């Protein structure tokens, strides 16, 4: 982790406290881009300082938050999210949400950064985990579906950007027919098949942040990682 920082390279950190961080690292290292990417596994505040952008991987959000606090990373991470691009997948999306439902008893710490409310384990237990093809707006070869892997995934319940926040841009939705059948916590007025139901959103952007409730790092498809680097990371370091 102590490689010298190359000035022409962009350093993307991956929060490596717990979860599927190595999968993100593998895809980032294989991306072919004109800009050189330097990938850092972040476990300490010193690691984080080197980074121009950060990915928060899937894992257990309660575990990652506790380890971040114990490593003295919570403050530095919140500061990082305020000024630099961050992408959260699954547990990472939970940590980036402004508020959550289904937190552990006594509540749990979040980083915030994206003006959404999400429901943890929105589909239920592992037996409800699923895979489904997704259309992703703005991705290379976007007519070719992206394979979405949803594992005890969170569900986006509502978007509430304040006027001073950057607008939220929907990146991908799933079919309403895939929504949790048993969800009872948030009775929505709309018809379940309403395509604008926020619960159908599985990826979105707000400013330089990206959020996905599924796991692009569990596929061999690098298009989502390329999207993050191209759309969120490179414009912010230029």
């Amino acid at each position, binding site marked *: 982790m102590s490689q010298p920082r190359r000035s022409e390279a962009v350093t993307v950190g991956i929060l490596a406290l717990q979860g599927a961080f190595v999968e993100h690292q593998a895809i980032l290292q294989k991306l072919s881009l004109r800009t050189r990417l330097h990938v850092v596994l972040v476990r300490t505040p010193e690691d984080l300082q080197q980074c121009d952008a950060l990915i928060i991987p899937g894992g257990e959000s309660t*575990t990652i938050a506790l380890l971040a606090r114990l490593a003295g990373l919570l403050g530095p991470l919140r500061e990082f999210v305020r000024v630099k691009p961050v992408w959260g997948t699954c547990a990472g999306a939970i940590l980036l949400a402004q508020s959550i439902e289904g937190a552990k008893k006594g509540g749990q710490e979040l980083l915030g950064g994206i003006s959404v409310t999400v429901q943890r384990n929105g589909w239920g237990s592992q037996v409800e985990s699923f895979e489904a093809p997704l259309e992703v707006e703005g991705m290379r070869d976007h007519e070719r579906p992206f394979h979405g*892997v949803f594992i005890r995934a969170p569900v986006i319940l509502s978007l509430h950007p304040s006027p001073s926040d950057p607008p939220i841009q929907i990146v991908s939705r799933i079919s309403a027919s895939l929504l949790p059948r048993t969800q009872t916590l948030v009775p929505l007025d709309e018809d379940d098949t309403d395509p604008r139901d926020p619960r159908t959103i599985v990826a979105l952007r707000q400013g330089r942040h990206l959020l996905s409730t599924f796991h692009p790092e569990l596929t061999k498809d690098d298009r989502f990682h390329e999207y993050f680097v191209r759309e969120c990371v490179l414009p912010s370091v230029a």
Partner: protein
Amino acid sequence: MTTPSTTSSGVATPPVPQGAGNPTGTPVLAPTRSTQAKDGGSSSGSLGTFGVKSGLAQMLKGGVIMDVINAEQARIAEEAGACAVMALERVPADIRANGGVARMSDPKMIKEIVDAVTIPVMAKVRIGHFVEAQILQAIGIDYIDESEVLSPADEEHHINKHAYKVPFVCGARNLGEALRRISEGAAFIRTKGEAGTGNVVEAVRHQRAVMSEIRKASVMSEEELYAYAKDIQAPFHLLKETARTKRLPVVNFAAGGIATPADAALMMQLGCDGVFVGSGIFHVSSGDPAKRARAIVQAVTHHNNPKILAEISEDIGEAMVGITITDEMKGGRMASRGW
């Protein structure tokens, strides 16, 4: 829904996640789904695929899974940073001490634990007891451990784990055993170690055996691999995949005898992706279980940082009383169960 990744030619190749304890290993990802192209842009979702089963194990990597016997312990584990809990009526040390037949826990007790925490909940079934597995799937458990810690229900067959939407973890002492379990549908492997002893020696033996056999296989010619597959009684296609990627095709945790933060870090440095702690946390005579649990969680994350390991190992009370592993010890060798 769809039969989990079983093709006409047998078992599909499972994904090959890269280990947290093996940062230089070959990165490998979820299997290419044959359904993927066919589905196109349709709205169908596939439940219980091998991809989501092994994918959950990938999300647990770098974490600690703790044995708990009630909702209160489960909450302590969650607060201490456990990435999942294993719900059971007696921890292995007590199963050893009490003797008799050890079975699946009461579903009511498991459901109380499910209700108490937000992290994944696992539970154990006896080797070969597919009805206990059906029951656990019906109550919506997140992972099943087909475990040698309970008394085996079948001395010849393991459960056909492909037939379930819920994923399975199984113990293994060597590469052949691990690959046999994966071919039966296990989406997650752990060392067997020797549960309930507080003695890490067997877990080390099993992890070293797996790693050494993988290294051996990785330099073999195809002809040699055919012979080696026969020798270690492993399916050839899984052995070939393992040899190519130089790691097990699924996530591999340490289990059986881990009692201290240093034990946990040792297993991570030996190439494990995470750690199960059974009796080592709540079966201590003195000290604060929460503190010990949290220290083990930190040790797994910072397993390569001796300075942090020293800090977290300080003042966590006495570890569980370990026992010397012999054939005559109470409860016998559990690791020899499984075929």
